[in-house]
């Protein structure tokens, strides 16, 4: 309105601070988001310690400590100490430890956390800008540097009565493999060497078992019923986590509890894990499995839609799909790693696209047996497409 006219009326000299709205900022800070994620991962870590012994706690502590130290040095060197985020370093260290095999040497978590923070977070853009989740950068770095330690054929699991207190270093083969749960451990031995269930499931594609104790390798899987009834442990075991796998990958129940907490606190949108599991379920239900062989043992026929298999009235195919969802690294990736705030899409709709893509890709990579840790690779492959997904899933602006 008008500025011209009579002089200003006299004003008191008191001045109040200037600021712009909003004047209330109750949102949790970015640091506390990472702390909350770490807190949600604690049940998973605890389950890891119970299932794989105290060695797991040492791995976690080393990983977190290295991540913190590297982060502090990085913060000092780049003079952005406060900005870079201590909480995020703890979260990265913890999640990295959860993806590691339970019997690795102490050097592995140290090198992994170093790569995660230095390369994944520091060199690739910093908190808020990186393209790939630092946890996965660390893990992939380890897989490249020391494939033997990261991708063993058999994975140790503590035997009956040895949970929490047992030692993984003197594991023994179980023979026959599927009787390990009821078998008694030899004297002085605490753990069994078992195959990863996801690699057993992947065996259905060419009808052969590729991993696990030597006695088991090369065995033929003749049908789904054969696999589900005789080779795999009961499905409930995959929920509790008494199966071969990474330190924080096996206990599906704890992962789901932690993930639900993250969804409840609004740190994770439900769309991503749900779409990821849906994508994986659909792909597992469709992906063909070997059904007939010639005399030389080569696969000559494959059956599509194994998810629809029935044995009498038992929905065998459905059980097969459920095994796919709860084994391997899929759940940990769905709730804790794919949902990384920085490297996942910003919109709920984009997260559906991204999650579904990760789910589909994970099962394809797993079934084709291209590379172990399929879900991690699927996330890494799709992360660069996140900004494209964001652009394609923009909301309609009101009145435009």
């Amino acid at each position, binding site marked *: *309105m*008008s*500025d011209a*006219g*009579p*002089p*200003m*009326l006299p*004003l*008191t000299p*008191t*001045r*109040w*601070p*200037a*600021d*712009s*709205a*909003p*004047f*209330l*900022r*109750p*949102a*949790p*800070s*970015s*640091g*506390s*988001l990472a702390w909350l994620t770490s807190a949600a991962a604690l049940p998973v870590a605890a389950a890891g310690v119970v299932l794989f012994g105290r060695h797991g706690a040492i791995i976690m502590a080393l990983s977190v400590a290295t991540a913190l130290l590297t982060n502090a040095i990085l913060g000092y060197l780049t003079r952005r100490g*406060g*900005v870079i*985020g201590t909480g995020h370093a703890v979260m990265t260290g913890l999640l990295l430890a959860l993806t590691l095999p339970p019997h690795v040497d102490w050097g592995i978590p140290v090198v992994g956390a170093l790569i995660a923070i230095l390369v994944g977070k520091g060199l690739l853009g*910093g*908190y*808020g*800008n990186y393209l790939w989740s630092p946890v996965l950068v660390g893990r992939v770095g380890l897989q490249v540097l020391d494939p033997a330690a990261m991708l063993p054929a058999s994975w140790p699991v503590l035997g009956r009565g040895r949970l929490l207190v047992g030692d993984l270093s003197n594991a023994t083969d179980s023979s026959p493999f599927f009787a390990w749960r009821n078998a008694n451990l030899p004297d002085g031995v605490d753990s069994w060497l078992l195959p990863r269930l996801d690699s057993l499931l992947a065996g259905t594609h060419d009808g052969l078992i590729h991993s696990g104790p030597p006695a088991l390798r090369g065995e033929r899987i003749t049908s789904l019923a054969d696999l589900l009834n005789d080779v795999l442990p009961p499905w409930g075991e995959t929920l509790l986590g008494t199966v071969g796998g990474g330190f924080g990958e096996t206990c599906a129940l704890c992962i789901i509890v932690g993930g639900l907490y993250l969804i409840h606190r609004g740190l994770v949108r439900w769309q991503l894990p749900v779409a990821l599991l849906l994508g994986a379920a659909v792909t597992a239900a469709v992906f063909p499995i070997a059904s007939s062989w010639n005399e030389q043992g080569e696969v000559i026929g494959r059956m599509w839609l194994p998810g629809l298999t029935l044995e009498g009235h038992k929905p065998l195919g459905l059980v097969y799909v459920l095994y796919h969802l709860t084994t391997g690294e899929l759940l940990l990736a769905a709730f804790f790693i794919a949902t990384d*705030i*920085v490297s996942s*899409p*910003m*919109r*709920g709709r984009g997260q559906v696209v991204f999650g579904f893509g990760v789910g589909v890709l994970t099962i394809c990579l797993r079934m084709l047996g291209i590379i172990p840790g399929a879900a991690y690779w699927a996330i890494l492959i799709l992360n660069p497409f996140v900004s494209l997904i964001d652009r394609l899933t*923009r*909301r*309609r*602006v*009101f*009145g*435009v």
Partner: protein
Amino acid sequence: MLPEQHQPLRVGRVEPFPPGRRLRVPLRYHEGSTVEPTVRLGQSVRALDLLARSSAPPMSTYAPAAGVVTAIGRTPTSSGHVRIAVELAISGNRNGSLEEPRQPPARPSDSHGWAALCDNFSLVNTIDGRPLSSTFRDMSGKIVEHLIIRAMGAEPVETAAPAVLLEQGTTIIEAAELLAKALGAGHTWLAVGKNFEQGRRLLARITRGTRLTPVVLPARYPQANIHLLVASVCGRTVPVNQRPEEHSVCVVDTATLTALANAALYALPATTSTLTITGDALARTGDYRIPAGVTVGEVLESVGTTKPTGIVVSGGPLSGRAMPHPDVVIDETTTCLTVLARRTARAHDAQACLRCGWCGDACPVGLEPSALMSLAEQFAIDRAAELSPDACIGCGVCSYICPAHLDLTRAMLDLKRGHLSSMRSYA
């Protein structure tokens, strides 16, 4: 958007706010016209005496209380403008001609007559701050399809509009019917928030047998924003840079209707406004009927503060405007004054954007504040224009929700206004 408020809205009586020793009455006029006081320095005026009349279209300003003119000059007002004001030293007799019987004016027959009546009694539409007569002038010869009466505060803390509804329900219904008839409105809606239970019960009773349709809207900020309100009530999308009048919709609030009723039925000009006084630094909060010309400092003095004052806001804490000093005059378009304690209003350290996407999820008009902010920092105005920053309604939800405590709202409003300076940083 922010989560819906489930606690019932607590609304008390609208308390009178007696004028203190001095009033700086801002003069009312249409944009583009000039205004001259009709009083001289040293002249004694009675309450409701004419203080000024603007050039065409003529709009009048009246004295809220009896007193002596001590100064005429410009003053900053709470909506951010500088306006000419008449300063009155209030004398003992505060009522003046209020007690005298007044003749109700003749009922106008056309929209020009209504516009003149509104200007003569200095009626202002509190929602957009324009004189109420502009609505009649805009809509002259056009069809008003929807008349929406807003009985919701613009922000969750604002209770003035609901309080007025509770206190003067029947008057508002009467005035609403009057206005609907004058505008020839097809549908008349009365919008209340879902959490305003007292008001919903009252509405069900008093709108029976009238042409008013009560609408209950989610009590979710910024639902009461004029554009979102129109979209929710009558399903019409009014772009943010346009007025509802351009889309045959007219929105007024309850305080404007009581002023209209006073003018059209009792020939009383508008010299007061209803103000919610709230905030955690205050001893007494509530809704007050304040005379024109009271300053922010006088309000603080009158209600008393209990904690060190951090920031004084005209409007609510989410979208209001910080008051620079105590001598700002509260004008007729201000419906809320928020006084925040120093601890509450403390500044937060901003951090780098995490790409969490909460701002985009929360934006009620579907913008992407984080992307727009980074474009604003790069001066990429052309690229920013593709993301339509013009649609920003300035509600402040993006900044409120941001875990990195970035000044997203400021970036969006800067882009919208086209003011980008090299010194600006939103972190």
